């Protein structure tokens, strides 16, 4: 891969390895993501999907290989880590909203204290984000008073408030009741259409087919296969991929 092609990638991962103690969780993972691309990561439980996307914003530390986010190399340098984190938003399976703060406070906290926005400005922005995810009327409630789907939409709004260039999603709908999955997926689709760069770990194959530019299949810490959704769901190359798809579809 030439210098040039690296620079047009907003995320570049080269030979990334990660160990939990003795356990080899990521093996020579290579993946490049272009701006505005939507990449869906699938794979069996324990294959390292979460570990991989959590390495991208340093919630986990990789031990070898290079991760470069928007031109910033992910090293031990705290300034680099801070900068990368300010450009990436993350949405978790368990929402991880702050239960002692209202929805509005959840969303404005980081803009005020990290981006140093004025409170009124941050609140206006938060309200427009809440409009975007469809729940402006919940602004003054506490997370515990919302449904799971609403909480996850708040979590998405909270990440967006930091004006990130990249959004990472780790199974955002896995903790939701079926009737709430759609409302969250709709928000994510709208986000993808608006041009956000996204890496999404999910088991929602419908979402992958409809929205993904590329699908990545991981197993046992390695990337087994990468391709467009058409390629993937119609003629996967590897036996393991076919087996996994036959089980899940």
């Amino acid at each position, binding site marked *: 891969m030439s210098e040039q092609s690296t620079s047009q990638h907003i995320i570049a991962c080269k030979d990334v390895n990660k160990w939990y103690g003795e356990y080899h969780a990521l093996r020579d993972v290579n993946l490049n993501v272009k701006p505005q691309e939507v990449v869906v990561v699938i794979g069996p439980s324990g294959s390292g999907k979460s570990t991989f996307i959590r390495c991208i*914003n*340093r*919630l986990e530390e990789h031990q070898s290989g290079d991760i470069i986010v928007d031109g910033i190399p992910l090293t031990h340098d705290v300034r680099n880590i*801070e900068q990368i*984190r*300010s450009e*990436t*938003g*993350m949405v*978790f399976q*368990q929402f*991880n*909203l*702050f*239960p*002692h703060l*209202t929805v509005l406070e959840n969303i404005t*906290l*980081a803009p005020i*204290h*990290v981006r140093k926005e004025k409170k009124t400005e941050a609140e206006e922005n938060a309200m427009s984000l809440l409009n975007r995810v469809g729940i402006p009327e919940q602004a003054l*409630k*506490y997370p*515990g*008073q919302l449904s799971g789907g609403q909480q996850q939409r708040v979590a998405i709004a*909270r*990440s967006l408030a*930091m004006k990130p260039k990249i959004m990472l999603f780790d199974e955002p709908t896995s903790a939701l009741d079926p009737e709430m999955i759609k409302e969250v997926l709709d928000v994510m689709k709208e986000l993808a259409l608006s041009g956000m760069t996204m890496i999404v770990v999910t088991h929602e194959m419908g979402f992958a087919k409809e929205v993904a530019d590329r699908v990545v299949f991981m197993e046992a810490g390695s990337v087994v296969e990468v391709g467009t959704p058409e390629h993937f769901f119609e003629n996967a190359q590897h036996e393991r991929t076919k087996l996994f798809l036959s089980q899940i579809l």
Partner: protein
Amino acid sequence: MAPAVQSSMRNALPPPSERSTVLGWLRKNLFDGWFNSALTVVALGLILALLRPLFNWTFNTARWEVIPANINLIMRGQYPPEQAIRLWVVLFLLAFVIGFAWAANTKTIRGELITLFAIPLLLMLVPFFDGGIRLNLLIIEAAGLVGYGIGRFVPEKRSNLGVWALLIYAVVMLVILRGGSGETGLWAGVPTNLWGGLLLSLLLAVFGIAISFPLGVLLALGRQSKLPAIRMVSVLYIEFIRGVPLISLLFMAQVMLQLFLPDGFPTIDRALRALAAVTLFSAAYTAENVRGGLQSIPKGQYEAADAMGLSTFQSMYFIILPQALRAVIPVLVGQFIGLFKDTSLVALVGLFDLLGIARTILGNPNWLGTHQEVYAFIGLLYWIFSYMMSYTSRRIEASLAVGTR
């Protein structure tokens, strides 16, 4: 969910036949069938039999005159009577600051506030208080109301003015109590070894709590620190303090502290040494309680804060500590009540707190044999303040419970 259920229950009235008549209540709760009626009668008889000697002692035998005769000692120890006005001024200011801080923080009048304002008025009813005391109680009431009135003008976003007022008050109060260096006059110095009684007990407790709390939080954070040196110092401190009884710390502070200080270092006065011991002791327990709270916070909260780019300090200050402390309010208040009662141990190292003063009074030949009366009274004082603390804690918990989790 819970608040909704509660409020709908509060709104639903019981059927009219059972509503709020004493007879109805009695019938429903105590005389519901012959068996329950019999139980009620037997239990009532037992209680009366047990309480009779107590009643008899309280209303016939006890020599309660020992209390009014020594009330000044009990309240303020050896603090010079001609300087008593300074104690009253301290109380006037306290009422003012509480009223101010309350109004600065919340504009709604609630039951607790009314209770607070009722206290001076109720105290005026104490039979043996003279006109001077009653007048001062009236001034306290007025100061509280004035403070409240002024506090109402504090705008919403300046509500931390209330906290500042309390902090400033703490310093001003000490200055007023201590006075200058002169021997006589209105501003005469009053060395702390003359401070005593309820005054000393409360000061030890309040300052012990106010200083040990932040110290304990820092120790709890230190114990979780990534830096091994800080972690080790915190662990050593906490485990050492928790391994020794408070009384031994008090003796060490009185006897040995001076040995550790460089030559020529001015002698630290005895009350301060006792305060240091109580504070250092309490900080270790606070640290362990706070650590419990920190451990109850799910990992996802740290991760969400990290992912949003909050610094370690910001994540602690805005996300982790508020939740951790909230989770341990009941334990902490329990511990602080313990601290308040434990201040009575300073009597054993020669200070004249409530207990120390009680022992002095009992040493006076005029009051031989009034142990029961004196100890019952100071017990009552301890109970009143402990109960106020636990009541406040329950109110705080209730007001914070809204919408969490």
